[in-house]
């Protein structure tokens, strides 16, 4: 059934189809709508779940964990400060291997206070033992809600799963989504079998115990191995099953778009991938060998797939809504590690944008590709030392993205006059005026 839904509403539909037995959540913008919809479904009897109103996010995840320990399928959702408040319980849930599914509405973290979208909240928590996926659009969000349970509850995995939706860009933006029938959902997602990890009156067990130095490492070792090895396998099994039932196909841990012969590749995640998709297809149409690598899963980190997709690139950009202050964007660090391990030496650059809900425009993306082309050409002509001409970390809307003098020669006339990405404080960060000179990108095609 097709419906016109916001990301939050679409996700709530996915959760309804997964039939969680316990939902515990505390509202926070921009997550609120998903839990409002779910509480309505519970109230109307559409969803047979226990809905627990808690007084904080810390309690929301604690309650979900307690319910999971009785063998229940559980759901919670949060965002930003709420997620950070949950942080203590995140490691509990992961260490206890409870397959809780959580929706996180990606939102900026204080201070300054800001309710809009960026990805600093979830990316700051990559090390807490949760599977982390990032949705590009509302359909993918809904589908991830179902698939997240199937992956998390698989006997080989048994880990909590955080599905990230960009705040407002997805949570509050309406799109047509296809909602599977309950019978289809049931064919994708079997009931949760908590055997071996729940309270059991026939075999009372100690749950959530201590493990001192002599045993602790084993727990961490297996959490790491199961995350790294089992999750990608189970993701592909679940995606195959999902495709058989719904006809929708998902590409696994990453999606590589036009990367095979790409000279310049943009790596990104979440809703910005939708924008970059459009830009890449227009660049391709104008003869630029551009590619897009969309990271769908940040944990486990698909290092090998990323290296494979980027092995032919001459210059790589990572665009993310995150900054690890004093270092670089965390996605960038992860991507660099994957490339270094694979012996790929193409220059890489980090573009930080969308902080606190800031717009990332097509012009920004175009400018990033132009800068990459410029560097690639300079490296071809002058050797690897030329790669340092572009800074390692560039803040969109603050740092200038204008090509270095002399770069226009390599870029060719048609690209030179684009002032997109001009970011001096006096300048409109979106650079609208000059966009049309380069590509006639239709706004309506991209979010």
């Amino acid at each position: 059934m097709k419906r016109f839904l916001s990301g939050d509403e679409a996700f709530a539909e996915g959760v309804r189809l997964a039939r969680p037995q316990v939902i515990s959540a505390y509202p926070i913008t921009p997550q609120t709508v998903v839990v409002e919809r779910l509480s309505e479904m519970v109230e109307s009897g559409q969803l047979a779940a226990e809905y627990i109103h808690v007084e904080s996010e810390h309690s929301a995840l604690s309650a979900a964990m307690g319910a999971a320990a009785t063998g229940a399928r559980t759901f919670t959702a949060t965002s930003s400060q709420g997620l950070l408040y949950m942080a203590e319980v995140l490691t509990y849930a992961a260490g206890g291997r409870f397959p809780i599914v959580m929706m996180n509405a990606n939102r900026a973290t204080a201070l300054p206070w800001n309710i809009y979208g960026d990805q600093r909240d979830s990316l700051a928590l990559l090390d807490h033992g949760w599977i982390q996926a990032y949705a590009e659009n509302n359909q993918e969000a809904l589908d991830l809600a179902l698939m997240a349970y199937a992956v998390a509850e698989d006997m080989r995995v048994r880990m909590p799963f955080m599905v990230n939706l960009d705040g407002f860009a997805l949570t509050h933006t309406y799109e047509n989504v296809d909602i599977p029938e309950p019978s289809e959902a049931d064919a994708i997602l079997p009931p949760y079998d908590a055997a071996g990890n729940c309270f059991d009156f026939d075999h009372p067990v100690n749950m959530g115990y201590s493990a001192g130095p002599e045993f602790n490492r084993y727990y961490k070792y297996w959490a790491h191995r199961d995350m790294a090895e089992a999750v990608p396998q189970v993701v592909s099994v679940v995606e195959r099953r999902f495709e058989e039932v719904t006809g929708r196909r998902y590409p696994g841990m990453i999606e590589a778009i036009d990367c095979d012969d790409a000279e310049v590749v943009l790596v990104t995640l979440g809703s910005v991938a939708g924008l970059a998709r459009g830009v890449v297809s227009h660049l391709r149409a104008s003869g630029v060998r551009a590619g897009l690598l969309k990271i769908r899963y940040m944990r486990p980190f698909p290092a090998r797939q990323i290296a494979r997709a980027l092995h032919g690139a001459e210059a790589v950009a990572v665009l993310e809504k995150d900054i690890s202050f004093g270092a670089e964007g965390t996605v960038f660090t992860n991507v660099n590690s994957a490339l270094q391990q694979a012996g790929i030496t193409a220059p890489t650059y980090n573009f930080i944008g969308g902080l606190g809900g800031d717009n990332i425009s097509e012009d920004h993306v175009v400018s990033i590709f132009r800068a990459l082309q410029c560097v690639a050409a300079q490296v071809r002509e002058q050797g690897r030392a030329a790669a340092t001409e572009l800074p390692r970390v560039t803040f969109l809307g603050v740092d200038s993205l204008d090509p270095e003098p002399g770069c226009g020669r390599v870029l060719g006339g048609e690209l030179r006059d684009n002032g997109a990405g001009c970011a001096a404080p006096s300048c409109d960060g979106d650079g609208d005026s000059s966009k049309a000179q380069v590509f006639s990108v239709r706004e309506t095609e991209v979010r």
Partner: protein
Amino acid sequence: MNNDVSRIGTAANVPVGDVVRTCEHIPVLRSHLACPPSLDHAVYARTTCYPAGHLVAKNAGWRNIRPVIDAEKCTNCLQCYLYCPDGAIYRVPSVCRPTELADAAAAQATPSCGSDPSSRPEGRFLGLSPQSDVPCAPSLTDVDQGGTSRQVSPGGVAVDYDFCKGCGICVRMCRFWALRMIPESEANE
């Protein structure tokens, strides 16, 4: 099987990836529970869900009062187990339960012994000889030599005093007044 608690910690020398199967490497304090699910870390280290008392060092030295179960009143409802914050309440396998042990003992003693709860002192079964045919008895005695005891209701509910911290929550949760706290100094061990 060597249950010597001094072996606790020897697993620190086992390299990651090794399959640890024997009690040589794991302090199986509660081996009287007959069959721990697995001592292979590839199995047990996938969750934090395991019968109480395995894998960890004894940790009850600070307790100054302890819960005792009144075997007559206990209905085996396990409410106390649900609320115990330390997972210190467990169910003893049926072969080890005092009724059956007492019955076994009764067969050799007075006919009334097994049927009269009052004649069954706390922890009585601990006194069974290690040579008993009851499979769990030898290790019970082993544990007892480590200076601990258990006390089991007819339904098989027991408090593990190696881990009970004496918080008293179980006493509050029991709806049948089957639990009470007594000072350690009055504990009969």
